């Protein structure tokens, strides 16, 4: 049953008044009901591209922040990839000092309005929350991400954000390759030290995966634009339409253009395909293509956008991560009648965030677990008309620790689909490696870096984000960008 934002707010308000001025013991705090995230009603949101989660109201955020018992062990901090002082920012939120709250977050994370929306909190900070433990249910943990989002949005909307102070010109010049989360955080930390920072983006819009990959209904692009504007206000120059490796090689940037150091945050942009028969038929798309058309090229704005989108009735999405959820939910919004996510394992092993899976189900996305595609079939015009699937069962755990899907012979069956979207991950884009002597990669094509400093095997060249981690999360990419920037600042200081 969908509860409106107004009702949730009224409930929170009533409870807040009731609790007013009562001193709260930890037990009382843990008893405060978890504040549900207000959202657009499913039947409404499948007809638009606007954000699904609407954000807490002020009453809700105060209540949710009061659920934190400020425990001594602070296990949430250990669960955060960038060690945000979570209890401290929550305490400020509970007091209603949102500006101060966001300042505390920004000591560790530069992009709270983005991370508050896209972090998989249930496997990070919230996984270890003491309140969740008290309830013996991780879903009852304090909603750290939702509070983070509220305070960040509040600060942005009320002009409470402070532009970081920039040290005087260091005389050093740094190139940042790519403009996704790793690059944004690296650029900001490098600029603060007074270096000239130039960010190079291949596409015509900056933001990387935040712009071409994550849909508007999960991360509004105006938030990304705002973060990029902050960078520009700090004096970072952003150059779109510049493909490092092709427009200019890294060696040229360093030897001819006078860049003293380079940070590579070019992402994992090389879509994996299934390697099955029929994969090049008309109507088979990588999730990257499908999402880029919709998000970056705005193909969902039919009649306005010049980039077309394939019209689908029955869509199969292969994969079980957030990208698969994004693709499935996008297909639904673009008018598909039936969208089925086909995953080789079961729901438990699915890497997607819980919230995305829940939202997808609410929107009518169906799931076919324990099935793997064998072959894509097409009609006489080469257009997809079906997919042959085989049933799997779970066997022994594999290298990832998840139980391996084992195909059951004889269980093959052809299902009707007119569109297939492949969302089984990305390999590293080989472009920079191929055009830069001295950069070493592992067998997956990921850059090999010093774990402490993020320096690559080429002196003065650092890297972070998916180009190092493979397909990971925004927060991990951001954390690496910051770690690299710190080491680069030391390196630049040491240059004669």
């Amino acid at each position, binding site marked *: 049953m969908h509860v409106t934002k107004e009702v949730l707010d009224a409930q929170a308000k009533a409870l807040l008044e009731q609790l007013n001025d009562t001193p709260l013991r930890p037990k009382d705090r843990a008893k405060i009901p978890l504040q549900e995230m207000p959202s657009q009603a499913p039947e409404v949101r499948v007809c638009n591209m606007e954000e699904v989660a609407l954000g807490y109201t002020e009453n809700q955020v105060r209540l949710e922040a009061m659920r934190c018992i400020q425990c001594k062990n602070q296990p949430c901090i250990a669960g955060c990839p960038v060690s945000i002082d979570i209890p401290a920012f929550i305490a400020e939120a509970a007091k209603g000092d949102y500006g101060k709250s966001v300042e505390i977050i920004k000591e560790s994370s530069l992009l709270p309005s983005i991370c508050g929306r896209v972090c998989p909190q249930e496997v990070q900070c919230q996984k270890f929350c003491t309140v969740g433990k008290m309830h013996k249910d991780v879903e009852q943990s304090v909603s750290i991400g939702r509070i983070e989002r509220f305070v960040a949005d509040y600060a942005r909307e009320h002009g409470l954000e402070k532009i970081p102070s920039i040290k005087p010109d260091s005389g050093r010049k740094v190139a940042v390759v790519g403009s996704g989360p790793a690059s944004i955080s690296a650029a900001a930390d490098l600029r603060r030290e007074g270096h000239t920072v130039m960010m190079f983006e291949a596409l015509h819009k900056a933001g990387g995966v935040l712009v071409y990959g994550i849909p508007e209904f999960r991360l509004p692009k105006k938030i990304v634009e705002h973060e990029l504007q902050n960078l520009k206000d700090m004096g970072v120059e952003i150059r779109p339409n510049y493909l490092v490796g*092709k427009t200019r090689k890294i060696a040229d940037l360093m030897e001819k253009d006078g860049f003293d150091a380079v940070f590579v945050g070019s992402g994992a*942009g090389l879509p994996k395909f299934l390697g099955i028969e029929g994969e090049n038929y008309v109507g088979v798309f*990588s999730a990257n293509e499908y999402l880029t058309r919709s998000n970056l090229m705005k193909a969902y704005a039919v009649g306005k956008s010049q980039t077309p989108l394939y019209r689908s009735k029955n869509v199969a999405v292969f994969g079980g991560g957030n990208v698969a959820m994004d693709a499935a939910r996008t297909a639904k919004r673009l008018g598909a009648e039936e969208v089925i996510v086909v995953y080789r394992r079961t729901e438990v092993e699915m890497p997607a965030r819980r919230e995305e899976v829940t939202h997808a189900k609410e929107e009518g996305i169906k799931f076919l677990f324990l099935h793997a595609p064998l072959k894509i079939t097409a009609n006489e015009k080469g257009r997809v008309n079906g997919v042959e699937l085989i049933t799997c069962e779970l066997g022994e755990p594999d290298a990832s620790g998840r139980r391996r899907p084992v195909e059951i012979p004889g269980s093959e069956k052809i299902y009707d689909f007119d569109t297939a979207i492949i969302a089984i991950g990305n390999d590293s884009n080989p472009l920079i490696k191929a055009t830069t002597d001295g950069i070493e990669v592992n067998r997956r094509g990921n850059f090999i870096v010093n774990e402490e400093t993020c320096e690559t095997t080429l002196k003065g060249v650092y890297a972070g984000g998916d180009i190092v981690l493979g397909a990971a999360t925004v927060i991990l990419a951001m954390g690496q960008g910051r770690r690299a920037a710190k080491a680069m600042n030391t390196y630049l200081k040491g240059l004669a």
Partner: protein
Amino acid sequence: MNKILAKQRLSKEVFRMEIEAPEIAEARHPGQFIILQMGGDFGERIPLTIANADPVKGSITLIFQAVGETTHRLALLEPGDTIQNLLGPLGKPTDIKKYGKVVCVGGGIGVAPLFPIVEGMKKAGNEVTVIMGARTKELLIMEEDMRAIADEVIVVTDDGSYGRKALVTVPLKEICEEDKPDCVVIIGPPVMMKFAALTTKPYGIHTIVSLNTIMIDGTGMCGGCRVTIGGETKFVCVDGPEFDGHLVDWDNMLLRLGTYKSEEAEAHHRCHIGLKINEGEA
């Protein structure tokens, strides 16, 4: 932002533009392409092969046919105007080396990207014959440019309004019979490339084709441009645009080029409203 330095009309629908792009001019090699987007949230990204470049002046030359919305908008720009987004050079350069006798086959607008390859092949010491074809005389471009550098130029038109009345495959087959070339380079409409590549196949001649598929980012990120080459999936944007013409699965490529046929047919009428380029000849 890239400034347009010069503009020239080559035929009814075909334009030559010289555009300020110093970095691309310095980095590019024959066979490579750019992607341009005319700005705004809703503009498409289209790939165009670089016809020429002047690294000293810092400019590149594009030759394009005004067929879709973006190329129509581009055709309406004048020297001094700017193009919002221009990315390049993309793709791998042509494998230019000394083969001996090289035949370069260009069809329609494909003659433009062929030009720097002819130039490169000549410089590398090859004897170069150019076969250039068009539907009709007024669609023929760059004949003088080709004549200035190639050893021999054979012109054909479908309707016989100029040169020989034939398809490019006819003189190509004759050359293969009479004096087998060491390498053939073919650029033109997909169907023409398919049949020209089939023409050289029985002779076992090394045949290079330049594919122009549906493309978005041009950096290997989306895979929309993928083609089947000798049974393997390749991306035109990063593995190409040039491939062995005898290994291309042409039928699959032609089907994929028609992916958005019905969506585009609807959009076509809409996109041309208010975008009419002035009637005119070269």
